[in-house]
């Protein structure tokens, strides 16, 4: 039965494709790739704990796009005291009204115009492959808008770039597909913040395909904030490609959403690279958050450190899958991975799976995953000093969570993330 329903939605999307009258060759090829993979079926190994196809079938009408927008102000979504270059998408369409670029040294334009001018061609769909995931292929077929960010050689961009996806679902459902292509030239530096927010209570489906190229000696910090209180169903496919001596810090914070799937891939295609790959998911209600991560050591002498932590409350579900590849030529690789989880209720769950595939012999690799309850002994210690249960819990969880903020250098941003985390923890029963 599942096969037929999957076919049903695949067919719907095929209709959508035909009706759209797409003639672009790359999009046609992407669609062919999509048809070959198809949406994940029930038994799909990569989506085993995340029944996304069923959820999409149940909640969305793929006959109509139905997007409409009545956004007047985006200020409530800003990060306090963080002065940033603002890139705003509303239901997947770049908004020149709300976007604002303040760093003159930065080159930002629409992805389509960067493809037309040829600038984007050497990178576009080069590392993030349509064959890797159905939603990448779907996005490559149907993407409505995208942004191209170019950081010139030796340019250190002081002010972060803040990408805000606003999903307007007040009247209708919202379905959108957006893309990002960022190229950091040699010895450049950039901090990117990405956040999804919504308005209204209708269902939202958003795919985001991101390709980020970090060249020699460049340094890239990436913070994703997933705190959408609406009915967001999001699949983000991210690929960061690193060259020699480049530095990468990433932090993904997931607090809200109906279904969040992050396919986050780092290709360490250079020597002496450093990659810090951090994440935190604090889930409640019925949220499902699935972090599928890949660290691919292609060249020797690089160092990667991955730390993802989770706290599951209510009926929430966490999924973590961490793949580390160390290719035969990637000798002297240091690769560490840790995933630690705390379950607060009997009805919450976590599925965690580390997958290491190591072909080189002279490497240092370690991984570990834990899941358990709050430390009773620590709870009693705090309570024996007069701290009530709820607050003691919040205190311990805050301490647990805080370690994941280590890669964040921007102090105002860090403060904001700390306050998001404590707000969430203070809501605990």
């Amino acid at each position, binding site marked *: 039965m599942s096969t037929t329903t999957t076919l049903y939605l695949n067919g719907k999307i095929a209709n959508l494709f035909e009706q759209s009258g797409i003639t672009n060759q790359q999009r046609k090829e992407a669609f062919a790739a999509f048809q070959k993979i198809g949406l994940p079926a029930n038994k799909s190994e990569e989506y085993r704990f995340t029944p996304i196809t069923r959820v999409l079938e149940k909640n969305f009408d793929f006959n109509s796009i139905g997007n409409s927008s009545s956004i007047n102000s985006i200020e409530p979504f800003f990060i306090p005291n963080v002065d940033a270059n603002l890139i705003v998408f509303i239901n997947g369409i770049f908004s020149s009204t709300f976007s604002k670029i303040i760093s003159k040294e930065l080159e930002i334009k629409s992805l389509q115009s960067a493809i037309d001018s040829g600038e984007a061609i050497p990178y576009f769909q080069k590392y993030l492959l349509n064959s890797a995931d159905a939603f990448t292929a779907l996005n490559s077929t149907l993407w409505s808008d995208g942004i191209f960010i170019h950081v010139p050689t030796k340019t250190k961009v002081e002010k972060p770039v803040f990408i805000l996806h606003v999903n307007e679902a007040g009247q209708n459902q919202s379905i959108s597909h957006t893309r990002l292509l960022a190229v950091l030239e040699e010895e450049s530096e950039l901090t990117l913040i990405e956040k999804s927010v919504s308005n209204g209570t209708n269902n939202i489906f958003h795919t985001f395909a991101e390709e980020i190229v970090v060249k020699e000696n460049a340094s890239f910090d990436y913070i994703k904030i997933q705190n959408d209180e609406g009915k967001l169903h999001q699949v983000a496919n991210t690929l960061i490609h690193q060259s020699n001596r480049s530095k990468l810090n990433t932090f993904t914070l997931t607090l809200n959403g109906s279904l969040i799937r992050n396919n986050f891939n780092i290709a360490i295609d250079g020597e002496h690279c450093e990659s810090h790959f951090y994440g935190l998911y604090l889930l409640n209600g019925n949220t499902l958050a699935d972090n599928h991560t890949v660290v691919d050591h292609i060249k020797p002498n690089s160092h990667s450190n991955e730390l993802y932590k989770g706290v599951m409350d209510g009926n929430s579900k966490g999924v973590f899958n961490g793949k580390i590849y160390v290719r035969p030529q990637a000798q002297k690789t240091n690769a560490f991975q840790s995933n630690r989880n705390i379950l607060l209720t009997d009805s919450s769950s976590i599925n965690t799976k580390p997958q290491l595939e190591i072909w080189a012999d002279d490497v240092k690799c370690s991984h570990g995953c834990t899941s358990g309850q709050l430390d*009773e002994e620590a709870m009693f210690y705090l309570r024996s000093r007069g701290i009530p249960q709820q607050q003691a819990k919040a205190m311990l969880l805050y301490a647990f969570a805080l370690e994941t903020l280590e890669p964040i250098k921007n102090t105002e941003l860090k403060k904001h993330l700390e306050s998001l985390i404590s707000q969430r923890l203070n809501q605990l029963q």
Partner: protein
Amino acid sequence: MLSIKNLQAKIEEKPILNGINLRVNAGEVHAIMGPNGSGKSTLASVLAGREEYEVTGGEVTFNGKNLLEFEPDERAAEGIFLAFQYPVEIPGVSTINFMKTALNKVREYRGEPTLDAVAFLQLMKEKMKLVEIDQSLLSRSLNEGFSGGEKKRNEIFQMAMLEPKLAILDETDSGLDIDALRIVANGVNKLRNKNNATIVVTHYQRLLDYIVPDFVHVLYKGRIVKSGGKELAKELEAKGYDWIKNEIATV
């Protein structure tokens, strides 16, 4: 202040306390001694409200209230303080932050105004001197990487901050060298007054040279089998616990 009548408790179906009777008045220091496994630490834990222990009988009143009905944090606010035998290491929570939260929660419970950052720091500095603890230690994560002596000093510092009516020191001497022991004992002595009381739980007489008890009770198989003055501790030290065991056996 504290009245324990026929207290019985078990852990995982195993009875540990088999009818404890004890009265502690304000201004008194009581020592509870006994061989390993006699139930000393269990008694301390039950009074502080540790949930693994199930009270199966008897009663405990504290300043006229039924202590057993209170949650651990409420007991602390009512004025019970347990200095842990093994203070817990809590990474990511600084002692200062932790103490500020705890003290203000206790003050709230007691209907006293909460302290702002300045007033808190002032109080903290005052109490730090009392237990000879360094501020740099208090800025670090709670007990993380502390030596045995530092952990115990931190316990006494917390006690000084919270000003309990009844302090229960659970094997506070374990793992301490003689200098650390003296510092910890001095702190406890300075905090003593006619309105508060102390229960010292210990295996050895050594600590009682520094914190001199008014009463000594010997716990064995979950009961108080012998009570006396401070000389009882000396006698125990000289004769060993076998003396008590044999005495019980012959009765």
